[in-house]
């Protein structure tokens, strides 16, 4: 082999736009997109914006059982056909575009529960044809949930529920760190369903606050939350979860989300100029994440969120 070009290990580090194009192509085959994090923490918002800029539409959106800003933004941008998320809320208020679009019949919001979503991801990750569920009773959600089936339990003889595999075509995750091979390190305490989604999905694309040297991973393998085997591409994106949080690095930007929700509510009740301007400013105009950071308020603005994450 001397003198021959020896093959080398391929890095999975990718640019934001390339990652978005990769995702868009896959989602054109099958529109199931799944988002990591929960509510206002560790949501892959920069990847979502890049995907919207790349022109995705007709998406079926999944998530850990609770989502808010990002799904609402995707609906505002007209990219979503169906929502398979049990809870869609900004927590302190409703999601304005979600509400508007569902009330107008433009988006189908399925009635689901957490166990169906988690159980479906479990079945997919475990490679089995279904996951039994035996903890759902009395809710009207059971009459409408499109993923849930009643089966005769061969062990107990009772009627129980079961859900087939949920296999997202693409999952977007946000973690704090990764090495160039795509081994992800969530440094936040809460990791939610990110690991499960990674194992349940066809393609995984992750944004991270920073790429770290190989030795950081090798010196503490227990800290790796998602092994690179599950990860197709990793993108270093400063403040890539904004306006949601990436603890311990920066906190959620409640004021940004609240201002967005005000614009969404205005649009819902007839005045969409503010929301249109918001989308132009944050989604259409920025060519890259640096532009976005400037549009939001520059790095000085983010220092406040960083300080908040350090409890200062």
């Amino acid at each position, binding site marked *: 082999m001397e003198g021959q070009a020896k093959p080398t290990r391929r890095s999975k580090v990718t640019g934001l736009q390339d990652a978005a194009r990769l995702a868009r192509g896959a989602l054109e085959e099958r529109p199931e997109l799944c988002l990591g994090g929960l509510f206002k923490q560790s949501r892959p918002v920069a990847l979502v914006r890049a995907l919207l800029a790349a022109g995705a539409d007709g998406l079926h959106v999944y998530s850990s*059982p609770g989502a808010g800003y990002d799904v609402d933004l995707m609906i505002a941008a007209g990219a979503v056909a169906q929502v398979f998320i049990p809870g869609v809320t900004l927590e302190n208020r409703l999601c304005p575009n979600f509400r508007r679009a569902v009330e107008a019949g433009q988006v189908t919001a399925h009635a689901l*529960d957490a166990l169906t979503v988690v159980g479906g991801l479990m079945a997919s990750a475990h490679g089995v044809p279904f996951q039994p569920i035996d903890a759902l009773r009395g809710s009207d959600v059971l009459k409408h949930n499109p993923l849930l089936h009643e089966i005769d339990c061969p062990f107990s003889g009772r009627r129980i529920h079961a859900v087939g595999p949920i296999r997202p075509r693409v999952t977007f995750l946000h973690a704090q760190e990764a090495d160039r091979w795509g081994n992800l390190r969530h440094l936040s305490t809460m990791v939610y369903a990110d690991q*499960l989604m990674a194992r349940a999905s066809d393609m995984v694309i992750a944004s991270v606050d920073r790429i770290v040297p190989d030795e950081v991973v090798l010196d503490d393998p227990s800290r790796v939350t998602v092994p690179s085997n599950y990860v197709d591409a990793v993108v270093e994106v400063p403040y890539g979860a904004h306006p949601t949080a990436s603890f311990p690095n920066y906190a959620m930007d409640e004021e940004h989300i609240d201002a967005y929700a005000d614009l969404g509510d205005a649009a819902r009740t007839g005045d969409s100029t503010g929301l249109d301007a918001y989308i132009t400013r944050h989604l259409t105009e920025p060519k890259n994440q640096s532009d976005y950071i400037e549009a939001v308020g520059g790095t000085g603005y983010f220092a406040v969120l960083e300080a908040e994450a350090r409890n200062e």
Partner: protein
Amino acid sequence: MSAAVSPIEQMVVVLARDLADGELGAAGAAALVPMAAIALARELHAPNLTVGGEMFFNPEPGRLYPSMLDDRALGRCEAAETFIELFGHSHHGLDFFFHSGLQHDVYGNINLHHVGGTLHAPKMRGPGAANLSYCHTSSRYYICPTVHTARNFVETVDFITIPGHLSGPAAKRDAGLVNEGPRLVVTPRAVMEFDKTTLRMQLKSVHGGNTPEEVQRHTGFDLAIRGEVPQTRPPTEEELRVLRERIDISGALRA
């Protein structure tokens, strides 16, 4: 001191008193009041109460937050879990849990999906809810909305997101709901319980500054008021001191 008690503080104290030492429970989605109640119980009489069953154990938040599902509130805790463990907890159940919604009805059923219209053509679409299991796999739960009006307390909810007692004992049995279900409804105005026979909600006590008639006027169904309705026992000095000095440092419950 009790003159300055806020209605939300009164709610917290009522709930805290009902939690026992050694129990396992979690706060649910609208976590401000439940988490304060749990913390107060742990400080006062239930040091072996375990907060668990969501994705963390025994958090030590520096102060209270409206949401208690992220690192801001939970970064300091004894252990972190994920949705897979939550799947298991949801089956095994807890000792107690908390719920509230857009609408609550006379049987304690809760609606978070839509008001008016139908699910797929709603007049007003709500947020939905994630965990529908703890309401019946857990030994009991508490309903504790921070508003109490005739609009969110209605005779019959438009959609049962979280089952309470459904339409009474027979329906509950038919649906396989074998545990207690909602035990108390605690609002800024009053405490309600459920009639042992009919499982319909009835007034148990009114907080200081409220009359039974006022509470009834702000409730969209008959609260079955018969004779004297006692006043809710106000917070003791000890309860209020611990709540304000050790749990609600930022005064979120008085805002």
